[in-house]
């Protein structure tokens, strides 16, 4: 029982990352009809937002200590981050410690801006072009973004630790007689993902803006004829999707140290998730993300890998192939979307 629940948690954890990226991909696809191969790069940029913030907060000046000496007897140079000198050592230290959660605030405007620039500067020109061209140009963009990040931050992974208070292990289900030890940050990641997904759905469902966007997804031309500038709203949705991917990246930093190709690694899987969920279906993307995450977690158990060796590596692709061949529109795909 404990083992099963542990795997479910593992699956939810991996699945939340898949679901968040797939949600963004589907938002872009559903609104703009563009297949965005650069979405993984947005995830990666999000993770590097928190790296940047960490570097900014750690920016420090050197003073020469008058009392302390180093082992050679020279005066010791002490590095003090600016934040510590401004807010006092304790507050400053805890600001640095909490840099990943703070990076959420830092990343939102940056990611939205990047999304706007991408859509207005590049993707706008590709609406009328074939899907193959859209795939190709965003694939090129993904390479460029990845290489820019590599040029600035190097090729090695950079640690972005979670705050001390949240980096421990939580004991779950003690009252129910279960013994599950699980890292707190991963639990937070699951909760955060659910919050974001809920937020996006609420935004689409309960605001006028969201209503217009949904109407535009259903029939873009008619909404345009009603005198609504649907393009502007779709651009906003692109920014939103970029922000969702970026936040997924920010929060993923403490789980896996960000490196420049993490986006590509996730992108392939996220595409599979989107296709399994059904192109253009938001609930489908989220559902498929969690299902595939959980399946992958169960396939990674020793029992599964000894029964069928290597199943953990291929389970997602295998499921995708089976789903696509039996339910061509994916789990929750709608009729008429990408039916060429």
């Amino acid at each position: 029982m404990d083992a099963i629940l542990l795997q479910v948690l593992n699956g939810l954890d991996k699945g939340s990352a898949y679901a968040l990226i797939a949600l963004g991909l589907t938002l872009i696809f559903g609104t703009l009809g563009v297949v965005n191969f650069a979405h993984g790069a947005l995830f990666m940029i999000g993770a590097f937002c928190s790296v940047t913030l960490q570097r900014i907060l750690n920016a420090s000046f050197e003073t020469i200590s008058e009392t302390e000496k180093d082992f050679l007897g020279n005066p010791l140079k002490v590095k003090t981050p600016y934040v510590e000198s401004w807010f006092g050592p304790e507050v400053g230290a805890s600001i640095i410690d909490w840099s990943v959660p703070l990076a959420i605030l830092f990343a939102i405007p940056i990611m939205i801006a990047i999304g706007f620039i991408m859509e207005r500067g590049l993707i706008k020109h590709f609406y009328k072009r074939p899907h193959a061209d859209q795939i190709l140009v965003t694939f090129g963009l993904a390479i460029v973004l990845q290489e820019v990040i590599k040029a600035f931050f190097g090729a090695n992974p950079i640690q972005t630790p979670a705050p001390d208070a949240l980096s421990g292990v939580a004991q779950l289900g003690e009252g129910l007689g279960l013994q599950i030890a699980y890292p707190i940050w991963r639990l937070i990641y699951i909760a955060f993902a659910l919050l974001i997904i809920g937020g996006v759905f609420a935004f689409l469902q309960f605001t006028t803006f969201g209503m217009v966007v949904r109407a535009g997804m259903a029939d873009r031309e008619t909404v345009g004829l009603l005198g609504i500038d649907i393009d502007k709203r779709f651009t906003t949705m692109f920014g939103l999707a970029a922000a969702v991917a970026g936040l997924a990246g920010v929060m993923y930093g403490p789980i896996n140290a960000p490196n420049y190709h993490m986006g590509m690694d996730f992108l392939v899987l996220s595409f599979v998730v989107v296709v399994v969920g059904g192109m253009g279906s938001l609930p489908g993307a989220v559902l498929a993300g969690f299902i595939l995450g959980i399946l992958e977690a169960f396939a990674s158990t020793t029992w599964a890998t000894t029964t069928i060796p290597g199943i953990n590596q291929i389970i997602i692709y295998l499921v995708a192939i089976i789903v696509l061949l039996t339910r061509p529109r994916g789990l929750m795909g709608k009729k008429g979307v990408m039916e060429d």
Partner: protein
Amino acid sequence: MLGLNAKDMSLLIVVAILTMCAPLILNPFPADSAMAQFNAGYPDLMQKFVIFGIFAIGFNILFGLTGYLSFGHAAFLGVGSYSCVWMFKLLGYNVLPGIALSVVTSGLFALLIGLITLRRSGIYFSILTLAFAQMSFALAYSVLSNPKFNLTNGETGLQVYANDPQWFHNSERLPDLPHIFGLSMRATQKVSVGGWEFQFNTGYYLCAFIMLICFYLAIRIFRSPFGMMLRAVKSNQQRMNYTGLNSRPYTLAAFVISGMYAGLAGGLLSAVDPLAGAERMQWTASGEVVLMTILGGAGTLIGPVLGAGLIKYFENIFSKINDNVLHGWFSFLPDGMEDLMVTLIHPFVGKGWHLTLGIIFMLVVTFLPGGLVEGGQRIGRMLSRKKSKEADSPASTEPAE
């Protein structure tokens, strides 16, 4: 001649002359001059030019003609590489059985994958092929290298060991490296003329010869009724189905043919260097052949070969340019300017050459959807218009909707 019209024949002859003289043409700078680093006429790189040329020609038969964008072609390349090395391990170092088997196995593999993936089209097809390729990569990397059934040798890569059977190998008479009837693939004839040094390599000429055959076959496919059918699939598959033609056998045939080309390229990669690794199957490798084909011009005959050559050239040459070289170039400028220029160019060369590649690729997709070949045609048309002031109407391939 050979069933080609005059224009195609001259194209084939030009390509044949260029590939046969490549060791001369690609070495325009004397060996000890400062520009020698731009020479591409060394065997390793020339082999890559023609091998990836074959890969891209094959990919173009699928993507250029039918419009099916496969993101998993590297799987066939990998299968071909593994088959070839297995022939080395079992039979001996003669490359011909290896190359033959790599074509056969990759063809069968492509048939299997094509039967499943071609049930869908568009983006679904891309993702299905991607899924299959990633699956093959994962399998080759981990499962198929377990001690009981070691097919791929996992992370180390498949290679020939001293205790392999090699039934037909005679180490007294034959070289202990891949060879063709006793002539080692690494045998290089160096010819020095003045300051120039030219290298004529057996492996290169074998690959170049095979590439010419592949190129000839590709021309025949392009000009055949079969090629016409494939173009019909690209321009409007629905309409084709309504006229009572089942397009599946045609697309499947194209898929298998392009898979065999990829397998052949993989086999040749193993033939010039008998080591096959799983990373050849990774999706970045599939992406690379897409880049090559698009950059050169999808759907054109010569485009993919051009694209493959350019990308491999830049990969090898651009990545060699470091800061010292840049300082050397700009040393005529005043100091401040020199440093500024070096800092500006630095991110785009050396380790950052992928950035240049990405930018060029984006520009090509955006402004030149027909690739470099279309660029050349446009320039040619501009020049001829200036001469004759006659507007020619380019044949449009857009569906008439």
